[in-house]
């Protein structure tokens, strides 16, 4: 899937080396979102990043995507430093980011069209992906006419149609209800299965993280840095609803929660302190 000749075929898909990101706040102060972050994602690996809310997980994704540059350190994609937004990156946002003034089909066509694919071909590819996410009969609808889950499917099709080798997902299903969420997780695994792309999936839901990922990375309370990494040895293919009931899942959950829970507590205490 990696086309550029510069990229090393044996290099990890994503590598962050000592990356930090400092933002200037509106009041003029400095806010460190990410500090000294080391993270490696192998090719074809599904990595879930969990951490307390607001700790800077999303910033990590914007660094990898090229939307933001690190203040310090290095971000490599396919062994090459990130400069701007690369064509191999796909990003699924937490909030609705489909274009409300475009129809479903036109939304999915947007990526290929932006990249200069001829209309007929873009339409064909878009229809193919719409069929895969089960929205073939909704191509003429506008996003506001769809349910939240359907809009998320449009977003997935919109991202997958570009054949990204790097897939970044920022709490993509957090706005959905529990049942839809499980369904979408299964669909994501199915869609991803055929692509061989590397995924970074940010979430605050540990269950979701374990059910989906090959590796779960626990972040510290902000400024975010990697606290611990846990390999997930549950067999694939997985079904999210059933894998949750397996004893091994519960074991892993307990193990990771002992690490994550502490960070959550720290964040909570800070919140209480600033509220007081």
């Amino acid at each position, binding site marked *: 899937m990696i086309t550029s000749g510069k990229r090393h075929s044996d290099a990890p898909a994503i590598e962050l080396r000592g990356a930090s990101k400092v933002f200037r706040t509106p009041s003029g102060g400095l806010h460190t979102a990410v500090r000294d972050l080391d993270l490696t994602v192998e090719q074809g690996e599904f990595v879930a990043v969990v951490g307390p809310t607001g700790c800077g997980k999303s910033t990590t994704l914007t660094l990898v995507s090229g939307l933001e540059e690190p203040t310090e350190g290095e971000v490599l994609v396919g062994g090459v430093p990130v400069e701007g937004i690369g064509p191999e990156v796909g990003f699924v946002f937490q909030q609705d*980011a489909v274009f*409300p003034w475009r129809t479903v089909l036109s939304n999915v066509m947007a990526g290929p069209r*932006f990249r200069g694919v001829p209309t007929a071909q873009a339409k064909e590819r878009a229809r193919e992906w719409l069929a895969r996410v089960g929205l073939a009969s909704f191509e003429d609808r506008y996003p506001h006419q769809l349910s939240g889950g359907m809009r998320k499917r449009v977003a997935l099709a919109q991202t997958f149609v570009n054949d990204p080798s790097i897939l970044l997902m920022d709490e993509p299903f957090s706005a959905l209800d529990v049942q839809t969420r499980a369904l979408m997780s299964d669909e994501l695994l199915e869609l991803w299965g055929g692509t061989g792309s590397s995924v970074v999936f940010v979430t605050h839901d540990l269950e979701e993280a374990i059910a989906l990922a090959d590796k779960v990375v626990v972040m510290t309370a902000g400024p975010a840095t990697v606290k611990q990494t846990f390999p997930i040895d549950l067999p694939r293919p997985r079904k999210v609803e059933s894998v949750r009931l397996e004893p091994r899942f519960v074991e892993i959950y307990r193990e990771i929660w002992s690490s994550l829970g502490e960070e959550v507590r720290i964040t909570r205490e800070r919140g209480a302190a600033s509220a007081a």
Partner: protein
Amino acid sequence: MPPENAAAAAASQTKDAEDAMDIHQAEQTKHAEQTERAEQTKHAEQTKRAEQTKRAEQANEAGGAGRGQGTKGAERPADPARGGRTQARARAARNRRLVVYATRVLLLIAVLALWEVLARTKTIDPFNFSMPSKIWDQITQWALHGTAQGSLWEQIWYTLYEALFGWIIGVIGGVVLGIALGRVRFLADVLGPYIKVLNALPRIVLAPIFLIWFGLGPASKVASAVVLVFFPVFFNAFQGAREVDRNLVANARILGAGNRRVTLQVVIPSATSWIFTSLHVSFGFALIGAIVGEYIGATKGLGLLVSASQGTFNAAGVYAAMVILAVVALLAEGLLTFAEKRLFRWKPAEPGADR
């Protein structure tokens, strides 16, 4: 988004009437009134239409695929009792609408009748205040026999032409500059203070200057219409370009859009609803610009009709010109609303529900 630069501060004037200058303030209130009125009618129409389509869809879904989508299947018109009730509800809504319309017409008749009676019984001075029957006579006389400056249609056409021309130029200028300044920070920083100063100027006083510059012909009226139209459109376009959902921009960039594509395919579409709000108001301004220009000095137009009637103490003539103007403005407004509906099919039915 902190409004650090001056242009942003200037833009906040469109929302914040308090720090605006006199004329701007007048614009604000007018704007508010107009949009409110427009939205009321629009809302009523839209909900009506939305309900119809929704019901149709529900019928489709219930009859067709039979997807178990809980809430949607709930209102099944197959049930006769329910069908009867929806029909009754529709009838009640229709009746209510009829009552509203009837009351509206009655109110108009009552006001006009009162005016007529007061004037005829000399309770108010008919010479100064005129009366509806005289105004009507004046309109028909103008329509049938022409005015002192030529046929009535020619006057209407002149005013419309000036207003429309000025409006188009002002809108294009406002949109282009608004989007450009909204997108290019450097431009906004450089031009911001100047635009703020120009906006602070009560622009209607420019009409006499334009008359000196461009003469009695249409050009001076077009110019005053342009300066009145430009600013509200500019500020709305500017604000619209800055308030674009950052997620949408980020998404477009990830999907492969460059700066030009982001502007054309994300910023402009999402700013259109802002721009359209200003189009409604600004057409009114264009008419004002044209009329005031004509009133100050012209060879043709409705404004001239007003000033000529005033010069001959013909109160009925002034009112008649006003009535004609109101009709023209309402027709233009209707056309705009129609165009807007075609353009905003992608929006949810309830206005304001989304933002």
